[in-house]
């Protein structure tokens, strides 16, 4: 029997300034490539795809693209569509309608008709009021009449009982077949406004997501690659295009996530603090079993407080381009960013940056070290202390407890990370670190996740049902039903709720 050659995969990460790509043969990085991100979606992606595919000796088994498009859209408000909000729960929560805590600018762009109808559930599973089906049908007709297609539906305690949201979506589709409906419980957990906000953002991103997906498909065709296209999500998994287009918020922050899963893959370390030092900021995250830990609470995106699955990331204003002032005592928050290579002293510029001080301190050999030779050792000492304190504190905050953990150093400014940090057992320099994000995309598997509250069933039964749902989600996202594997399962009894309530989280990949 002959051993078949390892499958070829292409991973692409479209970032704010750079688009990175890799070609991988099994676990080996065959080719890595960086190009500038272009204003149109396709050009940069076509270049990145071509460069990676060029090195392929054989057919490419799949292409995974991770993109920052959706994050940028939320941050700038550009490209978001107007959304109708339907909340089910009257007479509860009436005084704080959907969009009530959005920043005004973004709300003006996104807020369409806002409606509240009777229904929803109590924390013990009883209905608050009978579901107002007539009212929902009326909403559906008026939205069809107004030509509003993007709708976010939320219901009080829908993570406990989702039937209200599901029935509402059914009625809306009957009345308004063109409607694209986001149901809050498919995204978020207990916490009505945060979960609803995640749904509203998702609905607002769907038309853009559809356009971006089409552009990626075009780019594949232009680059002449015939392979299944998958889209990176923010939990370290991937989904087929239809699922990715339906849930764009699950791809928010997929860039930092890919960087972390890529670093885990490239270093072989699956439990660690990951420190990714860029030009302006440093992202610190925590890897558990090779996947980024999820944020435990609300995450504010573009001023909107959301409560759904997002990677737990701490961003600090420290990077290779950070301005160094106060004789080395202050590093950042200002930065020359991507203009480091013209403004930094070692590159012939006249602005003192973290990279210049790092070169002066002997941490890195970049540019012309003679241009910083005159920097006094007092300045470099103060600089070193300032950087060390910031990184030390941030690493500490992202660790789950006091036990020593590995630190994975990633990013162009990784030389700023001290050799020794208290509470860190070893600093691991990740090979191919500058394209860890594209590697993370290339190696990701199709995933499914359930994270909801079960009520009045035992622990084992709750796990069984949650696993079934997660598996169904993975298959819907394109996974092979015969190759599913549970990678994480945990439960949390909710002592604050009456009855036997527990939050159960199961993740499967395939």
């Amino acid at each position, binding site marked *: 029997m002959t051993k078949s050659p390892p499958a070829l995969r292409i991973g692409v990460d479209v970032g704010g300034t750079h688009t990175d790509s890799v070609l991988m043969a099994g676990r080996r990085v065959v080719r890595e490539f960086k190009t500038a991100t272009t204003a149109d979606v396709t050009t940069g992606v076509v270049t990145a795809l071509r460069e990676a595919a060029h090195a392929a000796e054989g057919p490419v088994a799949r292409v995974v693209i991770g993109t920052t498009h959706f994050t940028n859209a939320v941050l700038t408000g550009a490209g978001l569509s107007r959304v109708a909000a339907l909340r089910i729960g009257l*007479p*509860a*929560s*009436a*005084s*704080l309608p959907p969009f*009530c*805590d959005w920043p005004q600018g973004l709300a003006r762009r996104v807020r369409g008709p806002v409606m509240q109808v009777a229904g929803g559930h*109590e*924390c*013990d599973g*009883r209905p*608050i*009021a009978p579901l107002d089906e007539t009212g929902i049908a009326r909403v559906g007709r008026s939205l069809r009449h107004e030509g509003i297609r993007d709708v976010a539906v939320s219901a*009080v*305690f829908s993570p406990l009982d989702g039937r209200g949201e599901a029935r509402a979506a059914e009625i809306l589709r009957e009345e308004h077949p063109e409607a694209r409906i986001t149901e809050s419980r498919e995204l978020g957990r*207990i*916490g*009505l*406004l945060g979960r609803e906000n995640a749904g509203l953002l998702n609905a607002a991103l769907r038309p853009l997501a559809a356009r971006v997906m089409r552009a990626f498909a075009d780019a594949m065709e232009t680059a002449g690659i015939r392979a299944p296209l998958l889209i990176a999500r923010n939990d370290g998994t991937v989904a087929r295009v239809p699922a990715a287009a339906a849930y764009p918020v699950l791809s928010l922050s997929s860039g930092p996530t890919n960087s972390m899963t890529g670093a885990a893959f490239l270093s072989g370390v699956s439990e660690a603090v990951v420190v990714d030092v860029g030009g302006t900021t440093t992202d610190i995250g925590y890897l558990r079993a090779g996947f980024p830990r999820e944020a*435990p*609470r609300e995450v504010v995106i573009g001023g909107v407080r959301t409560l759904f699955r997002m990677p737990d990331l701490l961003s600090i204003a420290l990077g290779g381009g950070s301005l160094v002032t106060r004789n080395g005592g202050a590093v950042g928050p200002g930065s020359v960013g991507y203009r480091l290579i013209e403004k930094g002293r070692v590159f012939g510029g006249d602005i003192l940056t973290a990279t210049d001080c790092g070169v002066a301190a002997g941490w890195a050999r970049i540019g012309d070290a003679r241009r910083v030779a005159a920097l006094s050792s007092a300045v470099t000492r103060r600089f070193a202390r300032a950087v060390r304190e910031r990184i030390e*504190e941030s690493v*500490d*905050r*992202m*660790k*789950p*407890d*006091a036990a020593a953990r590995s630190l994975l150093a990633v990013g162009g400014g990784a030389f700023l990370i001290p050799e020794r940090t208290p509470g860190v057992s070893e600093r691991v320099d990740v090979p191919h670190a500058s394209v860890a994000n594209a590697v993370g995309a290339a190696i990701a598997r199709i995933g499914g996740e359930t994270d909801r509250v079960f009520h009045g069933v035992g622990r084992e039964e709750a796990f069984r049902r949650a696993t079934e749902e997660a598996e169904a989600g993975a298959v819907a996202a394109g996974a092979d039903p015969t190759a599913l594997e549970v990678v994480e399962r945990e439960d949390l*009894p*909710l*002592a*604050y*709720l*009456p009855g036997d309530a527990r939050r159960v989280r199961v993740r499967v990949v395939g």
Partner: protein
Amino acid sequence: MRGSGRELSALEIEDLAAGAWILGAGGGGNPYHALLNLRAETARGFRAEVIPAAALGDEDLVAVVSTMGAPLVGEERLPDPEVAARPVRILAERLGRDFAAVMSLEIGGANALQSFMVAARTGLPVVDADCMGRAFPEAQMTTFAIAGLRNYPFCLADIRDNVVIVERAASWQWQERLGRVAVTEVGSIAATAKAPRTGREIKDHAVLGSVSRAIRIGAARRRAKAAGSDPVAAVLASESGLRLFTGKVSDIARRTTRGFLRGKARISGLGPDRGASLELHFQNEFAAAFRDGRPVATTPEILCVVESATGEALGTEVIAYGQRVEVIALDVPFALKTPPALELVGPRAFGFDLDFRSLFPAS
């Protein structure tokens, strides 16, 4: 009664919420949703009027209000001014008398804003007072209970048209017990109006000036942040508070039992406290602090954990490993420190076999 106090600005409402969160001593519930409601009411033209207790006539009747229920339920069943006002209206009907003003049960946490939500819909002024001076986990932990005042009638209303009036209850504990049953039935959250108080009772037994105090704390923190100076120092200067400890959270253990969040947090010293360690015990709120095993601060004085960089108070449910914090102590009125008061709110009421020792010289 309206017209004898002063109107709060929108900014003061923000300060009130921030200050109330600090006075919550790590508990009391985050005022975020109540604040959203008040922002909306303010945008519609509502101006809260705060009156000093001295402006009340001895025979005037004051409604004492709160939201009662499970904190997690409050994340889905959001507070609503209309619902908050309902038990006040119904109790007035039942008594056959109008209330002259409204007051919050506790100034710590979300309930500090309850009186303002009621005010938005009833037009009543808010008394610059409460009956805890902070947040406490149980209803009998009030200056009114300490003074042995009558604990009934008690009124509870839900989002539908369900109202329960407890006409009489044998004790504050019985009132709490009967109330809990009703709250659970209506969805584990309800708006309440506790036993009405006369102007005389407020003047003699409430914690006076607590609304002003919360606003002052919030404003001190906001101004320091805007000026780029230390927000924690500003709060301490404003309240003659004490900085007990500086350090990082190095261990945290939590468990929920019978609706209470209990546990302890260990803080490892940094800067001036390097080498020392502080253990904080909590039951919803922070209740006692031990420095290297020795008790240094206990309830009823307010223990508060704030993030060093931002001055943001950390709730007992969100405190986590690695956070850089200051542990501060704020004083409470003497009425909470008398021997009968300490039986209800002192360290022994929270299960610590300790005598209360004040951090603040008697004023």
